[in-house]
């Protein structure tokens, strides 16, 4: 018995379907993305683990910015969609999810909400694929300062270690001179960021006030739950001032445990990470007069625009904006303005050309935050230092450092590092 078949066999249909999938799914992912109405923004970030607040506040800010423009009708009818992925704080996972966002989800633009170690991994992926990317959380200076890492489509929209070190060192030197604080100690987490950040802060504090002497440096482990031995060691050393690069939940624990010993009654405290509103409000007994770098503050600048931004953010998030929130909101504004200028074209090179040298006006950014053309990093963002008070707005008496001074020192630093 013979079996007759119709004109098109099942095998042929399957082959055709597979070929179709191969062409549309693998061969032309970027074309498919570019022709779609929706502009997809890929967001690899840390959404779980001890520093999940970095990722969650990043996501709230990015979603807020793109929802606002979508509600206003989008750009030339094109709307934005944010696709986020959790890297769990692992660099290998960050690289993997970034590739997935580009190749599988068809994202047109990447906002990299990773901490420093993950950002370097994402940097390699976006350089390889040539897609527009804005790093929004890494503060490590070399990410953009090192010319070997420069890529025409990649930018950093985040504060930078060297800028903060100059601003912090200058502020600390001023206070040290006023209050005659000569004997200093440091207490920072024992990993690359903690050590680099502390070294740069102390370097510039001593440069601006040579009488500063560091009598001890303590390096508790990153994510240590208990700081009692560091605190009691500080009590033995009796420094007049302490600088700390602790941040997040570690910093909250350190302050609460120090309070038990009344450490800050006789010791001035300087912190680069205390100024985030969720940290300030998490500390039950926030001591008055601790010195902190600006991270975000509803009352600085004390304008209706800043208050409106804070209110809009707290409508979608369970806390006030963090440092990462304003940086990501700023990055979204750079992207929105670039897409507006290109008339909705999402070609990475065209967008990068617009972002390079662009200044955007933001509720917290004074005359405007500029994406510097030469090294693709932002300048003129808030770098002020203030003092804590035990109720909202938590930090007051902000003192700004002139950006001209920061840029002058940065130029010298780049020469010393061989970056210029």
């Amino acid at each position, binding site marked *: 018995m013979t079996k007759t078949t119709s004109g098109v066999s099942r095998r042929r249909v399957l082959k055709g379907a597979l070929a179709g999938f191969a062409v549309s799914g693998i061969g032309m992912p970027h074309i498919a993305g570019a022709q779609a109405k929706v502009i997809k923004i890929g967001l690899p970030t840390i*959404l*779980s*683990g*001890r520093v*999940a*607040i970095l990722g*969650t506040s990043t996501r709230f800010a990015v979603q807020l910015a793109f929802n606002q423009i979508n509600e206003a009708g989008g750009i030339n009818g094109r709307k934005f969609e944010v696709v986020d992925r959790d890297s769990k704080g692992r660099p290998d996972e960050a690289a993997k999810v970034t590739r997935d966002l580009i190749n599988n989800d068809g994202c047109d633009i990447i906002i990299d909400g990773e901490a420093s170690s993950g950002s370097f991994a994402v940097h390699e992926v976006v350089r390889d694929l040539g897609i527009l990317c804005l790093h929004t959380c890494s503060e490590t200076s070399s990410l953009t300062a090192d010319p070997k890492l420069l890529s025409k489509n990649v930018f950093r929209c985040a504060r930078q270690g060297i800028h903060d070190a100059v601003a912090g060192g200058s502020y600390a030197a001023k206070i040290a001179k006023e209050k005659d604080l000569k004997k200093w100690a440091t207490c920072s987490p024992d990993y690359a960021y903690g050590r680099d950040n502390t070294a740069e802060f102390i370097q510039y504090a001593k440069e601006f006030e040579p009488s500063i002497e560091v009598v001890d440096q*303590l*390096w508790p482990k990153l*994510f*240590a*739950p*208990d700081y*009692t*031995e*560091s605190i*009691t*060691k500080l*009590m*033995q050393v009796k420094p007049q001032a302490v600088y700390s690069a602790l941040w*997040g*939940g*570690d910093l*909250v*624990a350190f302050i*609460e*445990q120090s*309070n*038990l*010993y*009344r450490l800050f009654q006789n010791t001035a405290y300087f912190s680069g990470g205390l100024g985030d509103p*969720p940290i300030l409000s*998490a*500390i*039950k*007994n926030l001591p008055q007069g601790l010195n902190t770098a600006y991270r975000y503050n509803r009352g600085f600048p004390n304008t209706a625009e800043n208050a409106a931004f804070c209110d809009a953010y707290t409508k979608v998030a369970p806390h006030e904006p963090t440092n990462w929130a304003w940086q990501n909101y700023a990055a979204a504004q750079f992207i929105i303005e670039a897409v507006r200028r290109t008339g909705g074209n999402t070609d990475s090179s065209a967008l990068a050309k617009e972002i390079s040298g662009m200044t955007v006006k933001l509720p917290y950014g004074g005359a405007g935050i500029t994406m510097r053309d030469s090294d693709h990093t932002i300048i003129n963002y808030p770098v002020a230092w203030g003092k804590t008070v035990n109720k909202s707005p938590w930090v007051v008496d902000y003192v700004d450092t002139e950006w001209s001074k920061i840029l002058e020192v940065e130029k010298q630093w780049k020469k010393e590092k061989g970056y210029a």
Partner: protein
Amino acid sequence: MNLDALYSCLSSSSCVVTQVSTALIIGMLLFMVASGLSLIFGVLGVINFAHGAFYMAGAYIAFFAYRSSSSFLLAFLAGGLGAGLIGVIFERFVISKVYGKDILMQLLVCYAIILIFDDLVKMIAGPEYRMMGMPDVFALPPLEFAGGFIPAYYVFMIVASLSIGAVLWLAIEKTRLGKIIRALAINPQMVGALGINTTLLYAAVFGVGSALAGIAGALAAPTRTLTPGMGLSILIESFIVTVIGGMGSIVGALIAALLIGFTRAFGAIGFPLFVDGIMFGMMAVVLIVKPSGLLGREMAR
């Protein structure tokens, strides 16, 4: 290495008082966790790799109890009892299924439970850190003694841990129930043959062990930030304590926890970069010289 600083500290009463209190603070919390771990191993013969999860559960339960009642006493009791109850459920429905099985199987089951606990905490309390804050009753200036300082809350923590440890030791060594539990560790078949419900006893011992971890979590909650996965770091140190003190020995756990506390407190002055090295070194020496630990006995079953 700064031995001069260490000598100078040892010759100053204020430094000695402050650092000895630091050693007790670190040691007592470790003792609470490690004694539970040791008790469970001593009686049930199971290495509870998920013990840190009960510490975390105790801390979070205390946090929520304190937030809703503003009573630290209630939070403290809720942390211990809550973790104990979860421990009983865990023993009955999970760990009892792998008694006598390969240690790798027990490890896998415990690891699965750790991941499930961490995800549950994320779902209930969120992935961000939480801070309970110091209860008002303890918001006092630190107590001064011979020039050194000890915060009031830490005095309570040390006294509470020592008292609980003493009650546990008395219960095991001096009561009829303690005698039965010790017999259970040596010959469970005989205890069962005497008409005693061994299943109930196993669950109760596991519950008490878990409650000790929960109490440690509740004691830590006012001073430490709570995060999903917070049990891991204390679990590692607790294993060092139980290995040095001897698996199954409560007194051994106390001695070893104090040893670790003193190493960390005075190590921070004299050899701050080698504290972990000393701790693991002590463990290695004990494993080589006396593998059952300082006061350990051989595995019962």
